[in-house]
């Protein structure tokens, strides 16, 4: 299965700016399919960003986050070449993770 996470983390001095895109339907549970049946809710609940084993940001999402979610944040103390791990879990227990590197 191809990885659902894309990340771009760039170090600028002491600060690392992280942008990430995750492929996920983020179904709210309020939208109907073509036959008029409600599509059940299916959305990412938690996304965790870890730099060298330490959590630098965690996102808690509800069904109001758009499809294929985008997120941007910055943290201090990272440098070029450092590992950055991103992982998510959704309301159905599906999950994915990616071991990225800071550019």
């Amino acid at each position, binding site marked *: 299965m191809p990885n659902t996470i894309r990340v771009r983390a760039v170090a600028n001095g002491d*600060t690392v700016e992280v942008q990430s895109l995750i492929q996920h339907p983020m179904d*709210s549970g309020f*939208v109907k399919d073509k036959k008029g049946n409600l599509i059940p809710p299916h959305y990412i609940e938690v996304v965790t960003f870890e730099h060298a084993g*330490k959590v630098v*940001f965690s996102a808690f999402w*509800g*069904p*109001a986050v758009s499809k294929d979610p*985008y997120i941007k944040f910055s*943290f201090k103390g990272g440098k070029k070449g450092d590992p950055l791990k991103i992982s998510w879990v959704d309301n159905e227990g599906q999950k994915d993770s990616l071991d990225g590197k800071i550019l």
Partner: protein
Amino acid sequence: MSEKMAAPQPVNAERRLILKSLTFAGVAGFGLTGGGVWSAFADDAPTWPHDAFKQKNLDAALKALYGKGFEASDKIALDVPEIAENGAVVPVSITASLPGVTSLAILIPVNPFTLAAYYKVPAGTDAAVSCRLKMAKTSKVIAVAEAGGKLYGASKDVKVTLGGCGG
């Protein structure tokens, strides 16, 4: 360690007493009290705030998430479009120019569930985030930041021309 604690005697007598009683509580194992205190501070676990995400109005969502309301603050910068042509993808950015921010949240009162997103900000991470949210229709968007045990917030109106929550 005992030498260090014994050094400043008269001034810190009260503090020592508290320390002593704490130690005593630990040693004697006051299970209930200890457990309560621990759970109150053990908020680092990445658990999804289930109750808060199920609330259907602003007050209830804030109460479930933080247990309190917010005071309006110009230190919270909320960047949203004035008009969103597509309610399914509304870019939202928050920046809190306050020291010691521990979390950020975005709430949209017209959505079926008010709380849209909640972010934990550890020390060393900037109190700012950008993301994209769905909006059912024209509404206020409210951003809050928790710092020093208090809640600060700002709100802005977003006009939605095509809703993002229904079929």
